[in-house]
């Protein structure tokens, strides 16, 4: 059990390092070594740790535990092939974590990040539409059933490409340095994470590593199917590199533009589901 979490944390942090490296290379910079985010997390864990005087102490600390716990739970949901709705629920909880993290600090930058996390709640709409589109084909929300469906009928990436594109947008919305990373934009320092430093930030880095691992793994599992572990990791890496490419060439959008794009994508997917309903009965 814990070995899965330790492995996912390690790979997730490595993926974050690869993400930064790819972005840097595309932008013509040497970039940090790929293990930079692992060192980064260790560095934070050694830094002096305290709770700001203006913070809501309980929430400030508890939010770090909750962040790690929800993505640990999400990983187990994927591994044991349980309901996709639980994964959706975890995604919603993560939004509350982002919000609570910013509000708990008492810092104006943190609060700006928290407010932006509410605005970026639109990123949940494509996920909801994706869940609906998957159900339309598989008639089940069990991840194990969805994987079994793909073994018989082929990958949903081909059968339900618009749903895969919407899920890709969901994963992109949660990537660092991406066009949708408005909650941690540099004009608000580090946004909702500004005041979380030392051990608290190290804990958050662990949670975010798990989140990246879970989202990429979910994409492979839901749209390509159950594959051998090495192949799954390779596909996760390829998807990550494609996301890094998008992040490298796309400037950060304004908060309202992120909502517009995510809402448009959801609208397109709803039209797709309606057409499917008419065509397939």
């Amino acid at each position: 059990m814990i070995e899965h979490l330790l492995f996912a944390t390690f790979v997730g942090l490595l993926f974050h390092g690869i993400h930064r490296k790819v972005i840097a290379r595309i932008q013509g910079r040497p970039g940090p070594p790929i293990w930079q985010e692992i060192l980064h997390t260790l560095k934070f864990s050694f830094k002096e740790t305290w709770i700001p005087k203006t913070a809501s102490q309980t929430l400030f600390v508890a939010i770090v535990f909750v962040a790690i716990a929800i993505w640990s739970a999400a990983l187990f949901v994927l591994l044991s092939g349980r309901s996709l709705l639980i994964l959706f629920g975890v995604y919603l909880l993560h939004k509350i974590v982002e919000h609570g993290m910013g509000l708990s600090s008492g810092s104006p930058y943190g609060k700006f990040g928290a407010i932006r996390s509410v605005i970026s709640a639109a990123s949940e709409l494509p996920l909801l539409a994706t869940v609906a589109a998957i159900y339309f084909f598989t008639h089940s929300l069990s991840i194990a059933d969805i994987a079994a469906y793909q073994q018989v009928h082929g990958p949903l990436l081909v059968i339900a490409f618009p749903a895969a594109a919407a899920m890709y947008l969901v994963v992109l919305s949660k990537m660092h340095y991406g066009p949708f990373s408005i909650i941690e934009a540099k004009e608000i320092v580090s946004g909702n994470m500004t005041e979380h430093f030392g051990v608290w930030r190290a804990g958050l880095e662990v949670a975010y590593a798990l989140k990246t691992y879970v989202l990429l793994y979910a994409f492979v599992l839901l749209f390509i199917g159950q594959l051998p572990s090495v192949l799954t990791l390779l596909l996760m890496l390829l998807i990550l590199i494609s996301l890094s490419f998008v992040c490298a060439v796309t400037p950060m959008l304004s908060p309202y533009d992120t909502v517009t794009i995510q809402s448009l994508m959801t609208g397109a997917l709803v039209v797709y589901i309606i057409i499917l309903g008419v065509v397939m009965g």
Partner: protein
Amino acid sequence: MKKRTALIIGLSAGGISVIAGLLATFGYLSVMVAELLTVIAFPIFVIFIALWWNAKSGEEDIPFIGY
């Protein structure tokens, strides 16, 4: 919190997680219960181990207190 307390809590949480995993593997505990225990114990393990190695051992220089 004392450095030793952080280590005890961190190791206990890690131990609970490992034991829950082993019990589930050998069928003495339901997988779902083992997962639930691990979900609760893992954040405690991560944070308290980090707090343990972050904590000073109490033999530092007297801090600079200003002019």
